[in-house]
């Protein structure tokens, strides 16, 4: 009897072993997401953007007139900088307060929900904590939003600034080479297109053009992309990160490893 009970117990444990994971580790539950498009469509933000667009239109006219009157390239460059500064100042004035309030709201909701990172909704397929409603509520509440007392906890989700990585000399050189190649091929295939008589022939020329560009892209950029991916994964592993996303998809928090990746690539 005792043996039978023991057998049953072992069997249960064994079945549990089959069902329950072999190594128990806590799931990552501190990932939040925000629907930035929804925040962007809030009336206050829309109104601020409309005012900014109106200012832009007015500025464009003045800019064109100033450029017309410019006498040298140096004048033009100076004018461009001045107008850029004026636009930037207006943007800060009109959109800045809303943006700051939104950032504070996100930080507060994050802290309240113990999140280490908030990403854009577009990259979340399943799970995660949706904080859009809470952030919207806080922005609308009218109450003053206090800045968080502490920075977000270190996140196991890292991010890299792809724009910065793309600006590296090697990648820029490869992109420039691809652009030059595309320009040359465009001329060659445009000439071929004039020889094509039927729709099927034209479609074939276009398909060949796309394939030629695709092959060249693979030849020039894929090795670099693979290298960046491998280096990024290596840095992420050293920093004990699980995943790395693009900076553009990060709303708040996360671990920035751009510099480390740049350094590793430069070695």
């Amino acid at each position, binding site marked *: 009897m005792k043996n039978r009970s023991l057998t049953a117990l*072992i069997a249960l444990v*064994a079945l549990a072993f089959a069902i329950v994971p072999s190594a128990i580790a*806590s799931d990552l539950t501190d990932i939040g997401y925000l629907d930035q498009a929804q925040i962007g469509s809030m009336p206050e933000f829309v109104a601020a953007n409309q005012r900014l667009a109106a200012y832009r239109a007015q500025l464009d006219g003045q800019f064109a007139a100033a450029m017309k009157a410019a006498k040298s390239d140096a004048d033009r460059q100076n004018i461009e900088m001045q107008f850029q500064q004026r636009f930037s100042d207006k943007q800060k004035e009109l959109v800045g307060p809303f943006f700051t309030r939104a950032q504070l709201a996100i930080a507060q909701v994050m802290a309240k929900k113990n999140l280490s990172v908030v990403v854009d909704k577009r990259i*979340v*397929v*399943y799970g995660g904590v949706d904080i859009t409603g809470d952030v919207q509520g806080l922005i609308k509440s009218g109450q003053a939003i206090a800045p968080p007392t502490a920075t977000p906890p270190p996140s196991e989700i890292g991010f890299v600034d792809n724009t910065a990585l793309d600006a590296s000399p090697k990648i820029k050189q490869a992109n420039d080479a691809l652009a030059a190649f595309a320009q040359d091929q465009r001329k060659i295939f445009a000439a071929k297109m004039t020889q094509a008589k039927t729709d099927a022939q034209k479609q074939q020329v276009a398909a060949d053009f796309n394939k030629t560009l695709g092959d060249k892209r693979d030849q020039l950029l894929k090795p670099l992309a693979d290298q960046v991916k491998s280096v990024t*994964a290596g840095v992420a592993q050293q920093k004990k*990160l699980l995943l790395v996303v693009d900076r553009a998809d990060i709303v708040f928090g996360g671990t920035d490893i751009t510099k480390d990746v740049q350094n590793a690539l430069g070695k």
Partner: protein
Amino acid sequence: MSKMRSVNSAGLLACLAAAVLLHGCGRVDVNSPQIRGIAYVRINDVVKHHPLYGQLSQINDAIAAIDLEAAGPNVPRSAAEIASQTKVLNAELVAAQERANKTIAAAQAQYGAREQQAIAAALAAAGISGGPQVGAQVNAQSAAQSRAAVQAASSDFLAYERSVVAQSNAASNAIVQQLQRQAEQKIRGRAMEYQQDETDLSLRLTQQDAASRLSIKTRLNNLALDAATNKRLRDQLAAMDASEAEQINALRQRDAKALSAYQQQVRAQTDAQIHAQIGKIQAQTQAQIAARRDQVGAQLRSAAPPSLPANIPPAVRAQIAAIHRQYGQQFAADAQKTVDTFNATKADLTNQFQALHGADVGATGVAAAELATLQKRHDQLTGQMADQLKTEAARLAKQRGFSVALVGVKAAPGGYDLTNDLIKDIESLHE
């Protein structure tokens, strides 16, 4: 007792074996320290396995085709732009011709007057009375120059006629090509709309049946299923496939019929437009040629025959002949300059005219509209595919017990790559 123990041991081993078997049968330990409940999908790789990916590639090729056609050596212009620029060029040609005629006429009058004075002076010096009258008579010889000019004009008329006919033919060809291309674009656009409808239906039906299909497939994977149930389930699956295929085929047939009718309608409209446009061009050509013929005829009628007096002594006659040659040569040299200038202007205008009519009249406007439509369809299709893939990825992630699933991951030292599972899933849904 020992038998009992051995039975229990056997049960224990069986249980352990079952457990190990269950554990090892491809299940992912989503909570392991390397994964921690997080999955990711390389959506760019999955999208290539989507049944609509071929259509997306076709759209990309069509966009490239339009782009390459626009990048061709010809400058695309609309029919209205061609007509307006042709009008400008024709006006410039007529103005150049009038300028040349006026210059030649003025030179002719000037040299004629100077020749007349020189002849009168020569006759007076020779003691011959009635010098001015004789001079006027001799000067009438310069009318021969006019006649020669009119003859040249006559031969120029033939060249003009040939050039106008060639230009008219070029314009007609350009218009025929333009209208035919527009017709083909319309038909291609409609065909793409139908294709889109068929794709939408296919996608809708697949999504609609996805849950039932999955449920049947899951049941079919159960080894313990009896033969009758297995057959019933397979029949259900086949019936589902047949029903989907039937609906899609019915739509395809309807679309093919409608497209054929549309093709006939568009082609009939195009033929009528071509007929009308060519008729107009031919009428304009005839009018231009007739106008030039009238002009040349008037010139011919106004040309006077040469007349020389008989009572002039040979030495004076020789002197007068020399004067006449001298002024004739000066006039001819002057007139040649004017004719050369006119011919250069005319050649330039002819080149512009030919370039204008040889240009691709596929019309930027039409191409741009088609490009915008294709871009819109491309975005819609990409959106549809991405939505379906995300929905499927979410279902898989939930089914496998993940807490979070992401796309757009740049590097992943941890987490679970759900890409291949999703590819299999997508392929099984559409097989």
